[in-house]
């Protein structure tokens, strides 16, 4: 699965994009976040303030309890500040 990071989430993780193997037990966005936090200190730091993280599944905003389904791309980022 392709994972993308933006803004300070990207800075904390240290990469813009990565492809990871999703373990069998990971069904929802929240499951994926829990898994990512175990990868290393950078990921753990990026997802420390979990409530501040927004998620898009195949470029659509979703909530943490959303099933990953067949999504090819998941993106994590802080609340938006455009405009």
């Amino acid at each position, binding site marked *: 699965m392709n994972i*993308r990071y*933006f*803004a*300070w989430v990207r800075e904390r993780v240290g990469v813009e994009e990565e492809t990871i193997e999703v373990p069998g037990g990971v069904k929802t966005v929240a499951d994926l976040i829990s898994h990512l936090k175990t990868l290393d200190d950078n990921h753990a730091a990026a997802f420390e303030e979990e409530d501040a993280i927004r998620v*898009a599944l195949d*470029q*659509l*905003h979703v909530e943490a309890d959303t099933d990953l389904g067949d999504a090819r791309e998941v*993106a994590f*980022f*802080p*609340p*938006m*500040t*455009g*405009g």
Partner: protein
Amino acid sequence: MQVQPLVRIQAADFDVAAETLRLTAGRKDVGALVTFTGLCRDEAGTLDALELEHYPGMAEAELTRIAEEATGRWPLTGLSVIHRFGKIAPGENIVLVVTASAHRRAAFEAADFLMDFLKTRAPFWKKEHLVSGAGGAWVDTRAGDEKDAARWSSS
């Protein structure tokens, strides 16, 4: 008969007059035209530039979704949204929304709605670069933005 909105994400500045003309030239059905321009501010004199990061692909898609929601809700004859990315200096343009309609209430409300949802849903993030050269911070969300967007679900 719903109009197809124009959505553009670009590094370059935009020309408000040209975008306005695009929605009015040769037409006699536009009675009201509203433009909203968002600019980079720096009252304190400490900001060198804002750096606008975006999620390519999703930024276009999300702005198109918001714009189509607006053309569905209001009887518009035209709607354009342009959002810049990259480094933007104080005084420069960041975002443009243009709405055209037969009637002024539709043009005002659609532009207002579009900005509220753009602020809370379009995947853009601002980082400050300071004159001092010190590492700038990511701009925080404004508490009022979510409230502004929520106004539209009760109506």
